[in-house]
Structure formats: C-alpha cells, structure tokens
C-alpha cells in the first residue's frame, strides 16, 4: 500500500482525572474503509472529537499523543483546521437548513459566485450566486453517491435517509476531502437505504478517499470494512482484517471479560414463577430512547436487568411505565391493568422509580435531604401528614425521624437531614433517590442507570444496597443500565433491548459473545432463552 493518510500515535485523554483513552494507535491508508467498533462509552466519540479538533477536547485540558496527517505532524486545534486539511465529518444529527434546497445546503458558505454590475463597483460581498455551477456540482456529488433525487428540492420533508445522503454529499463536494469520518451513519436508515449507503461508501473508497466508519452494526462492518479496530474502555483490544474477522469475534472483543459478580450470599430470592409485572406491546415515545414494541415479564422477587446500547430504547421502558413519557400498550401489575401515562396511578399501586436523570428528574436540588426523601410518599400515600381543620399539614417531627433513620440505614454522608442535596456527592445523591423510593415501600422498584456519574467506591455501595433490598425485603427490582458488567454482577436475568424491541433474555453468566451479538442486533435466533 501507499503511505498512510492518517496515523494516530499513543493518543490518551483524561476527563477530570478519568482516563477515557489509553495510548490508542490507529493507521488509515488512502482508499481504505476502516471500521471502529465498541460499546457506548468505549471512547470512540472522544477519539473522533480529537481528530476533528472539537472545542470540548481543548476546554478539558487537551490530549497527549500525536496526529500525523499525510506524512506531517498535524496540530488540529479546531474543526476549521481539520476541514482545511481535508478531514470531513458526517454527524449523527442532521445539520441542514430545512427551508433551503439541496443545492443550497450542499454549497452553504462555499457558494460559487460570479460578478455582476453592482459587485464590480462595491466589491466581493455583492457578487451574485452562480446557480448553474452550483447545481452541476450538487448533481455530481449526488451521482457519486448513486442517489437519484432532484438537487433543487427543498430539504424540508425529505425522508431521513435522503437527509443523511445530503450530509454525505456535502462532505464529498468539498474538493480537498481526503478522509471522511462517519459517526454511526446507518443508525437512522432503513435496510434498503443502508445498503445504498454502503455501496456509496465503497465507491468513495474506490476514488481514493480514506474512510473511518464508526458503528454498532457488526454485519455492516463485515460488508464494507477493510480493517477493523475494536475499542473497549479506551483501549484498542483488537485489530482485525475483513478476512480474519467474524461477527462472533468482534462481539466478544467488544464486550470483553470483565465480570466481577457480587455473589448473593443468601440465595433466598431469585425470583419465583409468579409474574409480578407483565408488559405487552409497550410503545414509548421518549426522544432518543424510543420503545417500539416490548413484551416482557418480570417475576416476583427477582432482579431483572435491562441492557442494550444507548438509543435503543432500554431507558424508555421504565420511563414509559412510570408515566413520564407518552406510552401505549398494556401493562399488568399484580394481575391488574395499570393506567398508562399516570404517574400517580403507578406510584399508588406500589411501584417506584429511581430515574436515570438524577439531577433533572430525581432530585429537588435546592431542597433539604428530608424533603427529598418524604415528598413522593407524602403526595401519593398521604404519609407524614396531620389533619387540622380539614387541611393536611406536613408533620415535621415524623419527617425528621424517618429521614434520620434512612440516613443512618443507607449511610448517606451529610451534615444532617436539613442539608440541601445539591451539596452532596453523586453517590450520596443517588442514595437519597433510593431512600425516596424505599419510603414508598414499593413491591417493584425500577432503577435506571444507578451508578452513572458516581465514583467507583460508591458504585459498589449502591449495587450492594439494591441487592440488600431484594434479599432482605423481597423487593422485585428492575435495573436498567448501560454497563453490562454491572448488570451481570447482581441480576438474575438480563433482557437485552435492540432497536426498541426485546432481543432476548440471557442469564448473567452467559457467554460474552451472546451478549455482544444481542446488543448488536439481528441474532436473536442464536440466543438462549432462559426462564
């Protein structure tokens, strides 16, 4: 092969003392399609942000290592520099102006202009657009991709697939483009569109442009990539060529062996045969986490894990059942159908929820710990109230007593029950959230992302606490988490959600390959159903 267009040498990056990339090396040649695969949070996006000189990298202390572009060391400190060097990026979100035509969008800020009478007098700024030339360029770019749409159509109302193609066309229209980065380009495409897209990628590569391709869809990787780099926890864990790679290998590398199971000492509650919750055809319209059709049963007394990659809808399930986002379908709790879209109904039936959005939904940041703990129980179950002259007043003494008890039991580190929760650490804030849920004395507890944003020590404490609630109080717990290792450490069964639907259910000690395959979708037939 010729000399490499891009070399990344020993790239490391820390966010606030948290290492997200550890000495990553990567080499890309012209005309090569190079796929980067990895779980959420593996460090793929950070790597691309470094390559593209995004401000977020430099505002958090920069990175160490070296980027060599086209044989020369490059100092890419802003997206503008990256673009000048010929690095193009196709974003996940569309950055298009809806009211403008395809041509105008393609040529935005790079318009071809020609002189007219006024501009000859008043200078460059007054030149008019050379629409004919712009149209030709747009047509050429679209043809390269093999898309047959009129270049003068407005972008508004076009199908998502076409928008994605326009994004790509805009990048390839830049004459100097040498390297194109695609960040999960097929996530929003239908299968036919994805096929079309992959063909376009191959065409582009054939014309000598190097392509970096980030995706979760392992089958696509097999289809187009020449070389594959697998990243896990900020480290390169595997480099494969298309010939030697198999989907199973990639899945195993992606998930990796990192189980640290907290053994259930007393195996009292592992779930009975009785279903406490039956979810039928649940659809939830939660932006970014759409649930398309989930059927799932939760057994009384178990800890059920819900896993899957970000954006596939696992977060939406608990939020939908709790009535926080519009939901439809049927949910049966303890034999009775619950009213959807009504948090009050769900709470009063004996379900509680610890939200993944701790600071947004989970806490009243400026209020005291005690208020945060008792508020939901007070509103829903009329606890901690006293009736004077027909009006319900809060009973401070009882609230204080209860708060003190829970602070002690859950070991919430604070100066006292009156301390505002804003001043607590992430782990202790999470304990306050759990304390509020426990105050409701629920039969079923939903916990979403229980360890997000809290430090390692606190993570174990929170997981132990959930296990204790399950073992000692017999509480059924449904944990939704992006961290598979965490689910595998305490759950009895793990349901994997892919593309808004249940892909399969696995036991926590199932093979890494199975987890990886399920999370990447399309291999449900290989899954072992456990009951």
């Amino acid at each position, binding site marked *: 092969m010729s000399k490499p267009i891009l070399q990344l040498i020993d790239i490391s990056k820390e966010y606030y003392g948290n290492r997200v990339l550890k000495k990553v090396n990567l080499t890309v040649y012209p005309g090569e399609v190079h796929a980067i695969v990895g779980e959420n949070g593996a460090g793929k996006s950070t790597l691309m942000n470094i390559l593209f000189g995004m401000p977020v990298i430099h505002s958090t202390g920069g990175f160490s290592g070296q980027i060599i572009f086209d044989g020369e060391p490059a100092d890419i400190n802003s997206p503008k520099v990256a673009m000048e060097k010929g690095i193009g990026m196709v974003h996940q979100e569309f950055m298009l102006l809806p009211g403008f035509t395809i041509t105008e969008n393609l040529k935005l800020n790079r318009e071809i202009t020609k002189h007219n009478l006024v501009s000859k007098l008043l200078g460059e700024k007054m030149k008019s657009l050379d629409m004919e030339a712009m149209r030709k360029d747009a047509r050429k770019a679209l043809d390269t991709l093999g898309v047959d749409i009129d270049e003068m159509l407005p972008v508004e109302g076009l199908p998502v697939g076409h928008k994605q193609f326009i994004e790509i066309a805009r990048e390839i229209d830049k004459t100097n483009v040498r390297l194109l980065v695609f960040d999960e380009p097929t996530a929003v495409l239908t299968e036919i569109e994805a096929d079309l897209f992959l063909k376009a990628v191959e065409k582009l590569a054939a014309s000598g442009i190097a392509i970096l391709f980030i995706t979760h869809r392992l089958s696509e990787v097999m289809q187009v990539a020449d070389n594959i780099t697998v990243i896990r926890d900020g480290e390169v864990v595997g480099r494969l060529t298309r010939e030697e790679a198999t989907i199973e290998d990639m899945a195993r590398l992606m998930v990796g062996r990192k189980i640290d199971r907290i053994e259930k000492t007393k195996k009292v509650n592992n779930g009975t045969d009785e279903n406490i919750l039956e979810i039928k055809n649940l659809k939830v319209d939660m932006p970014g986490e759409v649930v398309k059709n989930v059927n799932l049963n939760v057994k009384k007394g178990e800890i059920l894990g819900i896993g899957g990659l970000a954006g596939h809808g696992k977060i939406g399930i608990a939020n939908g059942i709790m009535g926080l986002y519009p939901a439809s379908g049927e949910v049966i709790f303890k034999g009775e159908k619950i009213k959807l879209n009504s*948090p009050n109904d769900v*709470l009063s039936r004996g379900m509680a929820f610890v939200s993944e*959005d701790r600071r*947004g939904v989970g806490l009243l940041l400026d*209020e005291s710990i005690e208020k945060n703990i008792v508020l939901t129980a007070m509103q829903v179950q009329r606890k901690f109230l006293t009736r004077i002259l027909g*009006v319900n007043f*809060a009973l401070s003494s009882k609230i204080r007593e209860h708060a003190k008890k829970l602070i002690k039991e859950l070991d919430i580190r604070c100066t006292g029950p009156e301390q505002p929760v804003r001043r607590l650490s992430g782990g202790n804030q999470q304990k306050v959230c759990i304390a509020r849920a426990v105050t409701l004395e629920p039969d079923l507890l939903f916990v979403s992302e229980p360890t997000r944003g809290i430090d390692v020590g606190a993570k174990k404490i929170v997981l132990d606490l959930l296990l204790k609630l399950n073992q000692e109080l017999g509480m059924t717990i449904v944990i939704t988490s992006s961290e598979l290792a965490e689910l595998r450490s305490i759950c009895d069964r793990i349901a994997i959600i892919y593309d808004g639907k249940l892909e399969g259910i696995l036991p926590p000690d199932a093979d890494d390959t199975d987890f990886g395959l399920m999370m990447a979708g399309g291999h449900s037939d290989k899954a072992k159903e456990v009951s």
Partner: protein
Amino acid sequence: MSQIKKFIDNFGYTRIIIILFLILLFIAAFALELQTKSLISGILNRAGMNMLLTLAMVPSIQSGTGLNFGLSIGILCGVLGAVLSIAMDLTGGRAFFVANVLGILFAIVAGYVYGLLLNRVKTQEMLIGTYAGFSVVSGMCMFWILAPFKSPKMIWPYGGRGLRVTVSLEDTFDKVLNNFLLGQYNGIEVPWGLYGYIILLCLAVWLFSRSKTGIAMQTAGSNPRFAEASGINVDSMRIIGTILSTVLGAMGILVYAQSYGFLQLYTAPLYMAFPAVAAILIGGATVRKASIAHVIIGTFLFQALLVVALPVTNAVLPEGNLSEVVRIIISNGIIVYALTRIGGGE
C-alpha cells in the same frame, strides 16, 4: 474578614447597596431638616399599604409561574368588588368586607382563566402576563364607561356616562384598617390594625406552604419534572398558585385603597404590578424562590426608599416635577437590576 464576606454573601449585595443608599438618604433628610417623624410614619403607612400586593408574588413564584406581572388582573377584581359594594350603598367595615368577598370571588374565576393561559405559554409567563394584565386593564376601561352604575358617589357630578377616574372612599371604607387600633407614639403613627390584618394573611400564606397542597405547589415550581414523577399534577398546581396570587392581588388593592382613601379606576392599575415585583426582588426573592421574609424586608426597603427619596430630591432639586422623574428612575432601575439577576446564584 472572611466572616464579614460570608455575611455579605448571605445577605446579598443588592440589599446592602439599597440599605446604604437608604442611610444616605436619611442623613440627607436630617441635614435638610425634613420632618423625620412624618417620614417614619409615612414609611410605616406606605409599607403596610403595599405589603399584600407584594405578598401576592409569593404563590406565583412558588408555583413556578415566576413573578406575577399580570397582578393588575387581581387588582381589577378587587376594584370591581369595591365598586359593587359602593353601589350597594354599604359603609364602613361592612363595605370593606363585602368588597373583599366579591373581589375574592371574581379573583378565583379570573385567576383560574389566567392560570389556563399561563399553562399554555410556559417559560414565557412573565412577558405574556405583563401584556395580559395590560389588555385586561384596557378592557375594563370600557366597562367603567359602559357599566350602568347610578350611585352619585361614583358617577361624574355633572352627569354623562361612566364612572369617575378616582372615587373617594370617604363615606365608605376609607381607613377602616388604618384607623383601627392606630397608635400614636411621640408623633409617630403606627397603624396596628393594618399590620394585624397583614400578619394574619402572611400567616395564612405561610401555613398554606406547610400543607400537602402547598408543598406540592412548591415542588411543581422548583422542579416540574420531579413533581410529575411524584404524581403531582403540575398544571393544576400552577393554576392554584395563579388563583392565590390573583386573590391576594384583589385583597391587596382593597387594603391599598382604604389606606389611600381613593379607588383608582381606568388606567391606574396598569403599572401596579411593578412596585410589587421590585419590592419582592429587593427583599431577596428570585424568580424561583420567595418567602414571607422576602416580602416584609423588600416592601419596607422599597417603600422607605420612595418615601424618603421624594422629599429629599424635592429639597435638592425644587424645579418642577424632577422628584417624580427621579422616583420613576429609581423604582424602574431597581426592577431592571433585579431582573438581570434572574437565575443567578442559588
């Protein structure tokens, strides 16, 4: 030193600056040999007069609709109650009572409708509220002209259509609260009756904030998504807050009117929300958090400023109505300063 800094941080720079300015004004007043005793009586009277209108800001802030710039809606309800009580030919305490009952009834209905409106324009409440207030004031102008009232106390003495711009309350409920238990101490007047009434209402608002509904309302205000997740109906809590605020506005204007001795119709209520907004902001409230203490401190500071600033500027700049201009600059300046601090700090 650090302790002084901590104290200043706690107390707030705004309030310290205003207190220093106030002290400066008092020194000036003393130097200019103005009547300090009448100034103090004036402060006590003006603060009492405006306190309830400031208190009306508390439920609206707590329920999350921000400062109630549409307070004029409540004010109009109170004025309407008063006009009806005069039309019924009532006098004294009874007139005041009936005016309150009617005013509260109107305010509940108006507050409910206004609340529905505010629920449709979330995050824009203050701007929309200002203009909703303006429109209702203008609409009521037509009512004052067209309403078929016959009482000679209210219609123009020379005949014609409509009510007067200012209606004297001399024969109805002028100073019913101010003169009730009025204390005289060495030339300083303290209207104990007025303050008793205010303390009673402050207590009621405080008690409400300790009730189940009150706590739900504050939760809806401080974090709507949390409230939703706790089974609280955020929209109806916002409506409750708006109704309470409107009711307090109606009661507030009646206290104001009995103290002033006149009922002001037509465009007078147009800008009445602004001094109340300024007062509670000076008191230390923010758009998200307000307490009774903010109301009391804020009303005293703001009214003291106006009461003292006027005669002082009059003495320093006797030309024309410069003092009035200064008053407007000061009170609007305070509002601007306080509003720029929205969302700043905890």
